[in-house]
């Protein structure tokens, strides 16, 4: 089983799908060469059948992969931008690292963000939309609008993976929380100035009560699941985006383009400009993208960005620049006619 564990541990380094296929091939060779099943032809037959089953493309016994979601605000038609239009918007899903895409659920709705209940294996999905919060419990086949007229323009959503019925949303006026899987909502930002534009909300993977909110007045932290909030020291101005990993808050970027990041056991700051105020992550180095590059996602070695100018792009670094993290070229990976606001990856078994 060692190799099986490797398959898991290498997920962040390599494409999981290809790793697992390699593993299957390894298993098949091993058992073919060292026939421990002796002369029992029935067992041999069953073994061969199981190998065929495992290797078959439709097999899902050991198949694991990273699903890529793309949230689109609308088409790249100039008239579909902002305000009263959302033509072409919605949630898109790719199970083959961006090669092919299918739309899930509502068409023509502004989709700002998505989160998935990990334990549900991709079945329970929440979309943060212009119209409110949409929920699916059948992997996107059917959807229900979970919020009412009071909640609109939901900029981000975060599911508490330890208590998946606890959901937080960021909106241009407030943070809302649901304790019952989205059936009921209440404002969970009593310590913050009102109204407050909240662009992102994230839960610390190592402490599910620790919540981070990127707001127009700075970065706010809650240590008690949204009951109380404190402004983080050093965050004096509007925060646009942040990265939270299993090590906690790793980086945030401000309206001015200033980048704050944790490196060498301390917080550092790189001054930026308004033209480079979107936070991206490149080869474990923080970087800033243009306004058009608005989000990123990593699957193994593959680095994806979502562009407001249209499409999901896949990074193809040249050999000489592969490790520098500085210059790279990208190729479209689909959805090229859509304004992509957010990308997200989810592990699917």
């Amino acid at each position, binding site marked *: 089983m060692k190799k099986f564990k490797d398959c898991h541990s290498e997920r962040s380094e390599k494409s999981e799908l290809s790793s697992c296929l390699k593993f299957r091939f390894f298993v098949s060779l091993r058992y073919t060469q060292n026939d421990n099943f002796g002369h029992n032809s029935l067992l041999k037959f069953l073994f061969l059948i199981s190998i065929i089953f495992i290797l078959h493309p439709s097999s899902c016994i050991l198949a694991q992969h990273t699903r890529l979601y793309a949230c689109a*605000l609308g088409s790249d038609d100039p008239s579909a931008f*902002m305000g009263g239009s959302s*033509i072409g918007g919605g949630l898109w899903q790719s199970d083959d690292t961006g090669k092919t895409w299918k739309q899930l659920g*509502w068409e023509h709705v502004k989709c700002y963000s998505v989160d998935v209940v990990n334990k549900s294996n991709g079945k329970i999905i929440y979309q943060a939309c*212009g119209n409110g919060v949409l929920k699916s419990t059948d992997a996107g086949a*059917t959807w229900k609008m979970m919020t*009412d007229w009071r909640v609109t323009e939901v900029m981000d959503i975060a599911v508490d993976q330890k208590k998946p019925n606890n959901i937080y949303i960021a909106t241009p006026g407030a943070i809302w929380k649901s304790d019952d899987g989205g059936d009921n909502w209440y404002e969970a930002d009593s310590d913050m100035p009102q*109204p407050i*534009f909240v662009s992102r909300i994230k839960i610390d993977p190592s402490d599910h009560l620790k919540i981070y909110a990127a707001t127009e007045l700075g970065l706010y932290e809650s240590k008690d699941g949204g009951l109380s909030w404190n402004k983080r020291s050093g965050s004096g101005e509007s925060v646009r985006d942040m990265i939270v990993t299993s090590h906690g808050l790793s980086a945030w970027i401000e309206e001015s383009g200033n980048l704050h990041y944790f490196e060498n056991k301390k917080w550092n700051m790189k001054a930026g400009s308004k033209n480079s105020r979107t936070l991206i992550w490149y080869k474990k180095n923080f970087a800033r993208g243009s*306004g058009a590059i608005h989000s990123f996602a990593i699957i193994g070695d593959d680095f994806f960005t979502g562009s407001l100018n249209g499409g999901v792009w896949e990074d193809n670094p040249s050999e000489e620049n592969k490790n520098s993290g500085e210059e790279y070229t990208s190729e479209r990976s689909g959805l090229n006619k859509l304004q992509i606001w957010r990308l997200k990856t989810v592990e699917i078994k």
Partner: protein
Amino acid sequence: MAHGFHGLDGLSQINPYKSVLSAKSVCYLLILFCIPIQLTAQSKELKQNVLRRISDTEYRPTFSAIAARLKTGTKKKFALLQLDTLLSKEYGDMFWMYGCTGLYFSTKKNLPAAYKKKIRECWKKFTPYRGDTENHFLMYYSSLYLMSQEWSNLPASEWFLGKSSQDIHKESEAYLNTWINRTVKFGQIEFDSPRYLYYFITPLVLLSEYTKDPAIKLNSKMMLEFLLADYAAKYLDGNFCGAHSRISNEQAYDTRNSEATSYGEYFFEDSVEHILPDIAFAAISSFNVPKIIRDIASSRKEPYSIHEIKRSRDALRYSAALNSPVYDYAFMTKDFSLGSIQGGLVQPIQQRSWSLTINSSQKDNIIFGLHPYVSEKELAAFFPEEPSFMLEKIEGVKNGYTSENKWVGGSPYEKIKQCKNEIECDYDIPPEEKYQHVDIFLPGWGKFLQRDSALIRIQYDSCIVEVAPRTKYILIPESKNFRLRLSLDSGKTSYFITCNRADEFNDFDTSSTLCAKDDMPEGLRKEDWLYYSKFLESKLGSGILKMKDGTHERILDFTTDTIR
């Protein structure tokens, strides 16, 4: 975002699924029957004329025009073909929703069963966008309210929202009650819009006509009267006078080209000159405007001032308040109207802070001015998208926004004071702002009587307009009109404008200043009045609007749901 105003709602929790003959409902029915008889019916002939005109006009597929054709039996086959188009486009938004709702209810008796089924399917499959403004939400929730009344017992699986009919109905009712409550107490957000008033009136006509709930029926009628009375007070022979929350480029020089004019002519003048298809829904309905509102729209013998409070659009960023009060003032005469708000940014992109309308048969009859403010901050204040990207893409949506020559838009650097027929606008523009000038737009058909560095005097029909720029200016011919461009002096400029009837004209003193106090009677403050004029009175927060015309009065009391 959360629509704030906690504690103001006082939502009516009437359950439409209770017996229609509950005690409360009986009360509302009695109230409806007892509404004072002040109605001036839009005549049967007018209504028939409207439907005939719309039926005979070539429109791109439009629900209201199709309804007119089905109602009159004109080009019925063609109408149904157009309906097929509208029901198969697989895209719906709130504009689609209210049109579809209006068609369904107004032609219910004439509509083939197959089409009713198709419409039902649409409301299961389509996933309409709700929009992001006040008019969008009204269209969305009034449509859902009526459709969930019609299909009242369907499970969640039969609706695009994934909610049951009961849940949709309850939510829609909550929104409608909240919107009415806030508007009548604290003012409209998309106020005085020559374009968007149309999209408030039509859903309210549909609600007032087709809802079964007596309370919503009464409140919708009252809201229709409320908005039409507001419009009537600034109506001048088809012109929508004063400042506007939103106006389009096409209407910049002449509001008689606007959507609102269609309703103005229909309700106030029995005219169909500028007819648009949604008037069909009004013509099919039984709603008639009270005589007092028609009188308000036409009584212009004596000049009068109007003080109103409206609200700014929901501020998403950079504001301590969701909505701020907008002080709206207009001076009306039979020859001209001068109107303004206090300045600043209260609506994105399409705001008009002041205008002087000449009551003339000439086209292009409005004088107006602005600082062409262009900023991602403006867009980010009102829209949630990426600020820098919005500025880059805005031209695709709102053509002309980034232009130094634009005709519409507000500026945070503008301060406006007005007293009756005089207005003073001050600008203090930081050097980092893109455009360092201020424009005043003058219709080209006026006769220049004087033009020097201190004063421009122009005659427009019976009116003499005087503009006193306080810094250097140039006069730029622009198509048939003129652009008067003021340059800044140490970042500042200002101008003073008056308008008088030619026969009442006195020599103008270029150093004159405005009346020191707001044009309010002694002891009254404009901050306390949602409406204060000879025609309309409502104390801020009261929810009671009194309409007056001579000895006649009509009171809309939203606190007791009564009309007196």
